[in-house]
């Protein structure tokens, strides 16, 4: 076996085939409904990837906390190289990895591709696909007798692209909201950079919405469900008071508020790491106590 064959074997036997059997198992337990199986699968995947998601949320929180300091750096250093060095130093102190927001996406990608293949095999839209499925089910009678599965869910044929635009809209909208919630506010007042960020913010949802029109709607169902769960996770993790839904769904760029001017005698802003921020929030016995602590911190900074 050469390297490519080995990779292919690992992909099939390590990911796709177990996923196929798992989906068939869940569907069989869910009265043969593949749509319900996809939703349950989504919930399980989000539960398994929760540590990664939590890390991302903590990083986002840390990023938010250091925004005022970033603005100071932007104003203080004119040399782009020095500015970049100081910014990266600040990130390190805060325990924030700028590429951290990418990892959840990179983890989701192989799952998405494997799920796409699993859907193609499992729903057996063509007779050849059903034949292929027969060779990918584990020799467990319960699994072998569970197919063919019910491929209709709500208005969709899960093995075919959604002929309405409903899933495309749901995928695009949920991707947009999820992205807005996880992207930290930009402290960079540079209009060109903001334009780039805005483009990124719109491109991903539109791209995924477009893909929805090409691929089985089962995949779109998974992506929408995973976004919705992610949105709910973040909402409850960061606390309802930290969100402005109006800002999330607005079209304009997300920008940090301009920090109040400080006199040269003021102490530099204290950089709290993600763990410190989380620990600080966690030890608050009541929201009022947390608010009092934050007021005390601000007071110390002003002196």
């Amino acid at each position, binding site marked *: 076996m050469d390297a490519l064959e080995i990779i292919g074997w690992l992909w099939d036997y390590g990911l796709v085939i177990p996923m196929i059997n798992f989906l068939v198992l869940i569907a069989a337990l869910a009265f043969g409904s593949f749509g319900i199986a996809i939703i349950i699968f989504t919930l399980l995947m989000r539960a398994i990837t929760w540590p990664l998601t939590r890390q991302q949320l903590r990083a986002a929180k840390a990023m938010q906390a250091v925004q005022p300091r970033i603005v100071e750096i932007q104003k203080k250093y004119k040399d782009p190289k020095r500015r970049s060095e100081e910014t990266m130093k600040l990130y390190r102190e805060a325990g924030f990895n700028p590429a951290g927001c990418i990892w959840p996406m990179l983890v989701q990608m192989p799952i998405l591709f494997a799920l796409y293949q699993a859907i193609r095999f499992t729903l057996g839209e*063509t007779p050849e696909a059903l*034949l292929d499925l027969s*060779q990918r089910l584990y020799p467990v009678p319960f699994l072998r007798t569970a197919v063919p599965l019910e491929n209709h869910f709500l208005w969709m044929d899960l093995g075919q692209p959604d002929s309405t635009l409903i899933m495309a809209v749901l995928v695009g909208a949920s991707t947009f909201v999820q992205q807005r919630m996880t992207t930290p506010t930009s402290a960079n007042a540079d209009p060109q950079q903001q334009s780039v960020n805005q483009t990124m913010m719109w491109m991903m949802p539109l791209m995924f919405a477009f893909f929805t029109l090409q691929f089985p709607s089962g995949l779109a169902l998974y992506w929408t469900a995973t976004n919705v769960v992610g949105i709910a996770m973040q909402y409850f993790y960061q606390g309802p008071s930290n969100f402005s839904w109006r800002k999330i769904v607005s079209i304009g760029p997300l920008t940090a508020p301009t920090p109040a001017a400080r006199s040269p005698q003021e102490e530099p802003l204290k950089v709290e790491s993600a763990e410190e921020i989380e620990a600080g929030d966690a030890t608050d016995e009541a929201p009022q106590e947390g608010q009092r602590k934050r007021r005390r911190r601000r007071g110390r900074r002003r002196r």
Partner: protein
Amino acid sequence: MSRRPRYLVLLTLGLLVLAVAASGCASLAKPKGFASPVVTDEGVLLVPSGDDIYAYDVDTLGPLWRFPSGDIKHKDVVALYGTPAVAGGTVFVPTYDGKLYALDLKDGTPIWPEAFKAGGPLVGGVAVANGTAFFGSSEGDLYAVDAESGEQVWPKFTTDKEVWSTPVVIGADLYVTSLDGSLYVLDPATGQLRWSYDTDAGVAAPPVVDTATGRVFVGSFDQKLHGVDIASHQEVWTVKADNWFWSRPLLEGANVYAASLDGRLYAAAASDGASIWSKPFEAKTEIKASPILIGGTIFVADRDGFVFGVDPATGQAKFPEPLKLANGVLADPVELEQGGSAVLALVTTRGTLYFIDPQTLQVLRQIELSG
């Protein structure tokens, strides 16, 4: 945004686009078809392959016609899965785009003004009896259409899942199976249900009726071959395999032979299901094509293109080595007569028509079907 995160974001987006584009090249599986050849009493060999059906003279193997042959009107003909039926000089061709065509056997021209449009893709074959063509669709419906006019004879009979098998008419009964797991027996004149028998999983294999023993044999996705008594509608015996039964069982004398997707050929007595071999015959991979008996030898072809000759009495290989074809076989083989000798003909998944000597398991001739 600093340069490093920007590059990472662009790299991620680029990988995403590349990967999805690569997936998009084969975004949804294209149906290819695996309809089986048919030999007519008029000496015509009909060979479906891909989106076309080819007609050859049995004696000379000269091409006669091809449908749809680039005809713009029929450009939507897609993938032939169901075995065509021939009756009264008319060829009935079911297609994956959901239409039943009636063609003149002499020249392949359509007989009906318009093809009959069913509710979904047609995967099973056609049965013709008493001037009526019967066939099932992927919407779970069984249709009865007048062979001459193409008009529907009775309202479609609906099952709960796809009808992917070829119906069978024996006497006054119409037998059809469905992926909802049931065998249905109807009145072919009215479409009224007479009785049904349920297996534990979907059924894609056509039933085989043994009038001598009064049994009907049904291979199912529950990994069993069921022997059902026609009079009592009760299961009499089952033969267990390790994967689905999909192909039509072969009934020869008092025995029934059934191939499974576990790659084995099973043999049982039709009366009580008792195994007549010490163990099933093992092919190399799954067997979708039906077994065929020619000259005292059972021939099976597996999905990898290995063709085996099996002794029906013992289940042992009759030839030291199987014949390896260039591509796999999913369509049922047929027997035809050339020069007074029997010849085994089968078509591979890549559209190569092979003629094989059943005495020596050697290829006599092969024809590359184009399109």
